[in-house]
């Protein structure tokens, strides 16, 4: 039986969540970069699935299998503030990526699907990394 308090459990889980989010986001970028080097034409289905999974993680904050009390502590006021900041950063990253795709010459050789996938990916990855950074910074010295 777990004798730790809900605060201690939530603290440990939210730290693990931040590390997991950062690790998954970085792994995704690396995997996609390697897939791009292999150049298979259209974006592979797995990259879409992974993107959607990361988007779901960002939308829900994860921890869906834990008790309501633990989840509430994991997603308290500070975490929600970090989430808002991260989503804002992701939005601007996606906007910049969209503008780059539209204005930079030579990028029009990419298909619309590939461009959309890259824009979505950049937005999601930026949001996840910003969230993970803010969470880990908040845990520092706690």
């Amino acid at each position: 039986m777990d004798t730790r308090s809900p605060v201690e459990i939530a603290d440990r889980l939210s730290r693990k969540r931040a590390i997991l989010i950062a690790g998954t986001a970085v792994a995704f970028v690396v995997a996609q970069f390697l897939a791009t080097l292999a150049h298979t034409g259209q974006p592979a289905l797995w990259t879409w699935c992974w993107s959607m999974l990361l988007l779901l993680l960002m939308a829900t904050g994860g921890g869906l299998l834990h008790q309501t009390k633990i989840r509430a502590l994991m997603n308290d006021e500070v975490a929600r503030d970090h989430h808002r900041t991260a989503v804002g950063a992701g939005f601007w990253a996606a906007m910049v990526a969209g503008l780059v795709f539209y204005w930079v010459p030579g990028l029009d050789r990419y298909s619309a699907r590939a461009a959309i996938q890259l824009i979505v990916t950049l937005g999601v990855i930026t949001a996840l990394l910003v969230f993970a950074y803010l969470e880990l910074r908040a845990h520092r010295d706690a």
Partner: protein
Amino acid sequence: MHEQLRNRLRQARVRRNLTQAELATLADVSRKTINTVENGVFIPSTVLALRLARALGTSVEALFQLPE
């Protein structure tokens, strides 16, 4: 520390011999929240400020002040 808000949360907590985790349990928030408020990284909402004040048995004004 945020320039627009001075806070004495850490002093009030230490005066009552509470750890961050104990105060977090009393205020029903995460330890991370206590840490970020104490360090001035996060400005608490009115509700959170009231909860912290209640948990420490003091007033919001005793914990948080605007600079003169």
